[in-house]
Structures are given as structure tokens and as C-alpha cells.
């Protein structure tokens, strides 16, 4: 009940962007310079040994200039009983190449993340977005062709000790991640106003391979995105494990993500 309340309260974030505003990954494009976005991700994970966990991740995003973006995220979950604050993360992205044409573009960006987490380490999967202290650095490429967007990223992720919890010696502490995301603008077929609701369908593939032992997993995330009034964005996603030989607390999860952007705040 408490969680439903939080869910409803957080139903106040919206997002800009459309078919390349993927749910699980960031595209190579940036927010407009000087804009600030607030985002909230709500996730229910289905544990492999039964039961569920609830995760809540509020995030603030800042378009520093046309090429730089910075995000700050807080992690909360109820893995240890009550919903509590577990850690946070800082993320920066730099768009270093952009080639645009009518209704199309190709962009490249580099990104990095540092995270801190104070929860015990109970799985082999490395996830600096909410589970592990550590860092991640990678490259992302995004192509937009009319109403279709394709994005792919590759990154290196390294887990460190979760503050007082030592990282287990017998687990791989670094991984390569690879993603492929495809999004399609389904509605409207033709625009008549900013007030029309946009509907995007997306499917993303997220993979991880631990460097030390070669164990890996591959997930697929289909999602539906509604953009209301060219201001509000609501994402509904289901993350499903295709295969894994990595030990994970949860293989599947559902997610609701909301975001709102304030334009021209710092410029």
C-alpha cells in the first residue's frame, strides 16, 4: 500500500524526446542546453528465490551545454526489509559527433558513471545503477531515420567494495556491457499540434559478460512510451531474461518511469 502511494506520488515526472528516449539506456543525443529534468524510476523485481523487491530511483538531469549532460541519481529499495536509501550515482555524457539531416541524425557520445552503494553484495551480476559501488565508462551511437531510432552502446563496468561490504574474492569484479535498442514512433502518423499524445514502442537488448570468467546474461526489454502534451513522458517496461549463467537476485522485473523537463533554466 505504502509503495502504491509512492508510485502514485511519483507520477509527476515527464520527459522530452521520443523514439530514441529509450527506457533502459541513454541515447547519444543530449537534453537542450540549460534545461533541467527530473525523473523517477519505479521497479518491481521478481526474485529468483521467490517474492519481490521494490526499487525507487529519483534522478536529476542537467543539460550543461549542447554537448554535455550530467545526472545525479539516488537509489532506494526494500532488499533489506523496509524501503531505504542505499546509495547514489553521478553520470556524465559528452556528445562528440553529430551529423544531422531532415528527420534524421547520427550521433556519438561517450559516458561515465561513478556509484556508491552500502548494501550487501548478494549476486554475481554487476549493476552500478542501484546494486554496486563502482564505475562504468562507455560509448553510445544513435541513428534516427524518420520515425525509427536505433541505438547501441558498449561499456566497461567495474565493481568495488560496497562500503563496509567487501567485494567477494571468488566473483568477477569487472564486466563488458553491450546494448542494442530500437524504437518506433507509432502515433501520430501526422502531427496537428503539440498537444497530441505520442506513442512509441521500443525493444532493448541488454547484455553483460564478466571479464574474469566469461559468464554472461542477455535480457530483452519491450516497452511502451506515452508522450503527453509534448511535455510529459510515461514509460512502461518489462525486463525479461533470455539466458544467464551469472547468479542474479532477480531475472525479471517491471518498470514504470516518469520524467519532466524544465527548459531554459540555466541559460
Amino acid at each position, binding site marked *: 500500500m505504502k509503495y502504491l502511494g509512492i508510485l502514485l506520488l511519483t507520477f509527476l515526472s515527464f520527459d522530452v*524526446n*521520443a523514439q530514441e528516449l529509450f527506457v533502459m539506456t541513454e541515447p547519444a543525443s543530449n537534453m*537542450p542546453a540549460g534545461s533541467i529534468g527530473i525523473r523517477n524510476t519505479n521497479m518491481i523485481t521478481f526474485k529468483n528465490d521467490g517474492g519481490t523487491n521494490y526499487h525507487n530511483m529519483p534522478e536529476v538531469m542537467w543539460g550543461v551545454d*549542447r554537448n554535455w549532460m550530467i545526472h545525479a541519481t539516488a537509489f532506494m529499495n526494500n532488499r533489506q526489509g523496509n524501503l531505504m536509501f542505499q546509495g547514489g550515482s553521478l553520470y556524465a555524457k559528452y556528445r562528440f559527433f553529430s551529423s544531422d*539531416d531532415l528527420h534524421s541524425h547520427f550521433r556519438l557520445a561517450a559516458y561515465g558513471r561513478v556509484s556508491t552503494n552500502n548494501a550487501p553484495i548478494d549476486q554475481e551480476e554487476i549493476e552500478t545503477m542501484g546494486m554496486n559501488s563502482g564505475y562504468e565508462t562507455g560509448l553510445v551511437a544513435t541513428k*534516427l531515420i524518420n520515425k525509427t531510432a536505433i541505438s547501441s552502446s558498449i561499456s566497461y563496468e567495474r565493481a568495488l567494495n560496497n562500503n563496509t561490504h567487501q567485494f567477494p574474492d571468488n566473483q568477477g569484479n569487472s564486466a563488458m556491457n553491450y546494448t542494442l535498442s530500437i524504437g518506433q*514512433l507509432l502515433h501520430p502518423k501526422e502531427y*496537428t499540434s*503539440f498537444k497530441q499524445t*505520442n506513442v512509441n514502442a521500443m525493444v532493448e537488448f541488454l547484455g553483460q559478460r564478466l571479464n574474469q570468467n566469461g559468464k554472461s546474461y542477455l535480457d530483452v526489454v519491450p516497452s511502451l512510451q506515452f508522450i503527453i502534451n509534448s511535455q510529459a513522458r510515461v514509460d512502461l517496461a518489462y525486463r525479461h531474461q533470455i539466458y544467464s549463467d551469472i547468479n542474479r537476485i532477480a531475472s525479471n522485473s517491471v518498470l514504470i518511469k516518469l520524467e519532466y523537463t524544465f527548459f531554459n533554466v540555466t541559460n
Partner: protein
Amino acid sequence: MKNINLKSILIAAFVLIASTNSYSQISKAEIIATGLTCSMCSNAINKQLKSMAEVESVSTDLNTNTFTVTLKDNNAVTPNILKESVEKTGFFIGSMVLTMDLGNVQVAENQKVERPSGTYIFVNNSTKTGPIKVQVLNDGFVTKKEFKKSAKLQAKFAQATANENTYLIKSI
């Protein structure tokens, strides 16, 4: 008596000069942006243009990504300022057509016109007077494809357009 007359003449002259200067400003800009499809991206550009003090109003065609920007009287806007505004949002310009009144100017090929909003060099002839529509042909104001197509033309005027706030324009 004489002083008042002189004062009035000076004021009248000043007003005349000031009013002729206002004809050199850009009154409207039709901008086609590149790199986007969705209405939220258009909204970002729409809001960025509207936030400029010199902008009177912006009307958007969401299907062609065309932004018609009406500027206030006596504005100090240059084509570069408009380009910067769009690029700040993360997108680029595919086409920019300006409506300006250059006054009594002989619009001929290679004709250079200097105004407060910039230096303009015509690539074609035109027999119009009063407010005219011109397309800016500089790099960054047309699509990459268009720029490549006009390579010969660009090379001809390369030295001139290398100067600050100098624009190659085509009367349309």
C-alpha cells in the same frame, strides 16, 4: 525662436535616420531544423526561440520541422544568433530564409550590402525592392548535402564568408 527650430530640425533628422535604420533589421526568419522527428524535440526548439527577448512570436510546423520566427521591431538579431539558438537545443539548421527590407539596393550578383545585422553578399540578381526574402547559404545554415552541392559557389566566396557575420545569400 531660432534655437527651437534648430532643435526640431535635429530631432526630425534623428528620427528620420533612426527610422531608415529600422528597415535594415530582419523582420522574420523561417527556419527548418534538422536531426529531429518528434513533437517534443520541436517543443525544445520552440521554447528556446520564444525565450529570446527579440522574438515576437514563433509558429511551428511539426511535420516539416519549420519554425517561423517573427521578430520585434528594432531588434539586433543576426543570422548567427538564430543559428546559435537552435544549436543550443542540440539540433542544427537545414534552411534559413530571412525577410528583410534592405531599402533601395541594387540586388545583383556579387553585390555586397552592409547592415547592422550583418554583411550580405548576393549570389543572384533580383529586381525587387522593399522587404525581400533571402536564403542564407553559409555552412551551418543549409544541410550538409546542400552545402556539398554548392561547393563551387562556396569556393568562389570562401574568402568573403570567412569574415565574421558575413552571409552569402540568395534572393528567392
